[in-house]
């Protein structure tokens, strides 16, 4: 019996492709957001509201991850932005290779922001770096205030938390303060937004932050 020392990350191949994706995106000055959440929290709705709001202000493209359908990509295509559908055929997360392939279908020289909508799942996408600048985790108020505690890895890795469906709070036994506290215990550096994609509440603030983040990136690159 012989022992072979390896000391490698299990996902080293994914991480290597993610590094290449990140380098390409950085080279072209594209801010890539990896949008993660459980199913039905409002990822696609938030992207729709964002596209409406940023129309003419930023050049945005969307990569849509879905287990079986292209329904979300069809929704996004109505906003006349470049959209690439990835169907994972049962796969519960996007990986860097799938995103690299999707990126070849986009003209990065004509983009400011790339929104990657991951498969609805708060567990698996946490392990797979896609090459994004940051993860944006979306949670809807209907999911309950304990969600961050149940999926700590995702909340720890995210830079931004969007709490969606705040218009429903009066009908729910959910305390917004506790929900935020639970997320901030895991990751005190989270930037938090409260939105309702139905009423439009909070969308301006979120989009202003995106505009500012892109502008800051452009400034950094110019220096």
């Amino acid at each position, binding site marked *: 019996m*012989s022992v*072979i020392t390896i*000391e490698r990350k299990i996902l080293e191949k994914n991480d290597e492709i993610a590094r290449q994706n990140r380098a390409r995106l950085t080279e072209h000055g594209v801010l890539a957001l990896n949008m993660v959440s459980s199913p039905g929290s409002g990822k696609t709705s938030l992207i729709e509201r964002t596209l409406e709001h940023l129309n003419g202000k930023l050049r945005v493209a969307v990569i849509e991850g879905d287990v079986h359908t292209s329904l979300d990509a069809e929704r996004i295509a109505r906003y006349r932005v470049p959209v690439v559908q990835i169907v994972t055929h049962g796969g519960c997360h996007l990986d860097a290779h799938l995103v690299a392939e999707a990126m070849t279908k986009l003209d990065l020289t004509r983009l400011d922001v790339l929104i990657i909508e991951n498969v609805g799942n708060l567990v698996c996408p946490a*392990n797979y770096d896609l090459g994004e600048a940051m993860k944006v985790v979306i949670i809807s108020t209907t999911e309950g205030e304990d969600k961050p505690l149940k999926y*700590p890895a995702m909340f720890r890795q995210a830079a931004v938390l969007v709490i969606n469906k705040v218009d429903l709070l009066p009908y729910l036994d959910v305390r917004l303060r506790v929900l935020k506290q639970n997320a901030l215990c895991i990751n005190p550096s989270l930037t938090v937004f409260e939105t309702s994609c139905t009423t439009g509440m909070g969308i301006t603030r979120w989009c202003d932050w995106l505009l500012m983040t892109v502008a800051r990136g452009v400034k950094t690159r110019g220096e």
Partner: protein
Amino acid sequence: MHEMSIARNLLEVIERYAPANGSARVKVVRLRIGELAGVVPESLRFCFEVASEGTVAHGAELVIETVPLIGRCRTCGVAFHVEGYVFICPHCGSPRVELISGDELDVVELEVEEEGCP
């Protein structure tokens, strides 16, 4: 599905580093998996058994070392086990806590047997 994808990635790493002489069999795979990695060892073992069929590592035992979730306070410097995923220093209450360990998903080593050489 999650563990299946990780099992396939693990096999790729094993096949890259195991001797490719046709007579070697991987008997043991030692892994280091952090508390925060979100991987269920039993599920990973099952998926690995299925995924490794017909490969050099079929039937190999996965020995998994679970790495505790340890944080270090950037304010007072104390290192501590992060209980309940609350990244707040239990000594001084600071939220400035860096992760020291607990997010690993690593292959450490393989034990390989050459057929005919017990």
